[in-house]
């Protein structure tokens, strides 16, 4: 028995629709371009790095503490500039973690909606300030007007009379990453369901206890993710450390010493007419590979953690 009105209409497309397929392919190509970018980064890093290690022994690179590429014979002990990077990152984090988390808890738990609506965009503006401006601020204000007058005398060798300080770079980097910590942590805390807070209040908890013992632990993976991402940003920052912390390789965590960070070495060495294939040129790529590896590991950890809090509450 055929249904009334003739045979059922076919629902497939009348033609093969090549245009649709071409568009699908074109869009996929855009997606693949990002993978190609990563591949290109790895390829451009690996080649010269292998060339570098054919000349400089791996052990000397990873365990040496003297970074003197301009000397004869040169020494490539990368720990000196790794220490410089983490010197800056350490003081930056010591500044940014309490400030960023304080701001996040305030915005998520304490602030009136109106305050939150004004303060959040201002923090976003802080996140949009170019790092060269923050570096200039760190070198010409934080260093001479804040650190040098306030530093207690000769502690760790004293801060007066030095044109560059790791601490100045650290505070500049700290200012840069406060909005990262504040905004990601605030997102994580706002994602904690209200039922948890109301349950705690019903049990007689004070606001302080709700914020610190209920919301904070519940949002912990997001908070840790923001901190890991911030460390990765601090490690990868170039202009602030170049302008405020100097270009003197220094195997120390002392905040009132000039240092050189890995990024700063790359930034001052690979400018202008560096000749392709020279040892200096290759050393830039070896340092770049190490920097890439360090930040990659941190980013992966951060991405994992963010995914975890999303899975739980959203």
């Amino acid at each position, binding site marked *: 028995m055929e249904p009334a009105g003739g045979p059922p209409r076919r629902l497939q*497309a009348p033609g093969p629709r090549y245009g*649709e397929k071409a568009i699908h392919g*074109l*869009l*996929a190509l*855009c*997606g*693949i371009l*990002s*993978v190609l*970018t*990563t591949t*290109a*980064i790895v390829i*451009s*890093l690996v080649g010269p790095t292998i060339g570098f290690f054919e000349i400089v022994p791996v052990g000397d690179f990873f365990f040496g503490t003297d970074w003197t590429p301009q000397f004869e014979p040169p020494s490539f002990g990368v720990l000196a500039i790794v220490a410089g990077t983490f010197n800056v990152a350490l003081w930056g984090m010591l500044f940014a973690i309490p*400030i960023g988390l*304080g*701001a996040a808890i*305030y915005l998520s738990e*304490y602030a009136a909606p109106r305050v939150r609506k004004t303060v959040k965009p201002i923090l976003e*503006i*802080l996140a*949009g*300030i170019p*790092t*060269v*401006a*923050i*570096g*200039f*601020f760190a070198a*010409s*204000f934080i260093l001479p007007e804040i650190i040098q007058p306030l530093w207690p005398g000769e502690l760790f060798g004293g801060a007066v009379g030095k044109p560059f300080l790791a601490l100045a770079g650290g505070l500049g980097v700290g*200012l840069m990453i*406060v909005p990262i910590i504040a905004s990601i942590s605030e997102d994580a805390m706002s994602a904690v369901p209200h039922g948890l807070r109301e349950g705690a209040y019903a049990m007689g908890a004070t*606001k*302080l206890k709700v*914020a*610190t013992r209920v919301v904070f632990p519940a949002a912990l993976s997001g908070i840790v993710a923001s901190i890991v*991402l911030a460390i*990765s940003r601090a490690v*990868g920052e*170039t*202009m602030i450390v*170049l*302008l405020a912390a100097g270009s003197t390789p220094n195997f120390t965590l002392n905040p009132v010493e000039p240092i050189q960070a890995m*990024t700063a070495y*790359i*930034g001052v060495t*690979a400018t*202008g007419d560096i000749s392709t294939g020279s040892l200096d040129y290759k050393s830039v790529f070896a340092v*770049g590979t190490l*920097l*890439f590896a360090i*930040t*990659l590991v941190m*980013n*992966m950890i951060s*991405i994992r953690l963010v995914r975890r809090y999303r899975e739980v509450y959203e």
Partner: protein
Amino acid sequence: MAGLGAAAPRNRLATAGARATTRAMLRDQPRGDVIRNTAFAGLLLLAILIALAGLMALLIQAFAKGSSALSLDLFTNPPSTAFPEKAGFRTAILGSLELIAGVILFVIPVGIGAALYLEEYADKTRWWNRLIEVNIQNLAAVPSIIYGILGLAFLVRGPFDLGFILAAGSLTLALLVLPMVIIAAREAIRAVPDSIRQGSLALGATKWQTIRRQVLPASVPGIATGVILAVSRALGETAPLLLVGATVFVTFDPTPFSPDGYSAMPVQIFNYAVRPQEEFQALAAAGIIVMLAVLLAMNSFAIWLRNRYEQRW
């Protein structure tokens, strides 16, 4: 009747009494708790005030140092190391504008294309699509100077061998901010509810017609916000440009493919900032004021756009 009339005020009294007791019990938190709560709230407020004070100090200091050098000469005169009183940013501003134009041309089609692919076409259970996704998240957090290395080894020299030209710098910046655009565009596309797509498909539109006429128009504000934020990031980025050639004091107006070199606003500011003389410091600060004014305008516009057109479905 009489019984009820007598009970009403008594009930009211009882309710009022119970309410007062409850209030009194809840209000009288232990003194220690009250002090701790206030102190904690004060500390949080202090944290946010320090962050805002840092931002204010940065702006005020740039004005205090740079206002003496602020004049129209800044825009019309080329940079100079010999005559700081006549030096300006002309070629750097032009360089930055050309760099940004290239970034926009590259980032809008490729960024939106990749976002559309991931949200509308990609099968999330396939490993290669998950690879693309994780890869983009990772790229967004790769240090900018690594992109400089990529530009130096891959675009300026190596496979593409473009030389130290402005177009290579532009492409480097575009690759740097591409992940930001993709992530923002994906969020905007994801926010369009499925019912819109299903409605369009049910009316006989093809997949691309649905995307082109329903999904894209609905997500334009979100995408635009992401693009503006990414472009403003590219405008302020310095480190990668140091590696791909934008370091020289250029006295002529740059063109995209000229091998004679180019400059950019943040690189020029950096070049002035590393000179200790007061005049160059003032020039650096004045350049920062100009750049911050442009960036603040762009960012505020993006934030306004997002708040104004944020669609609730």
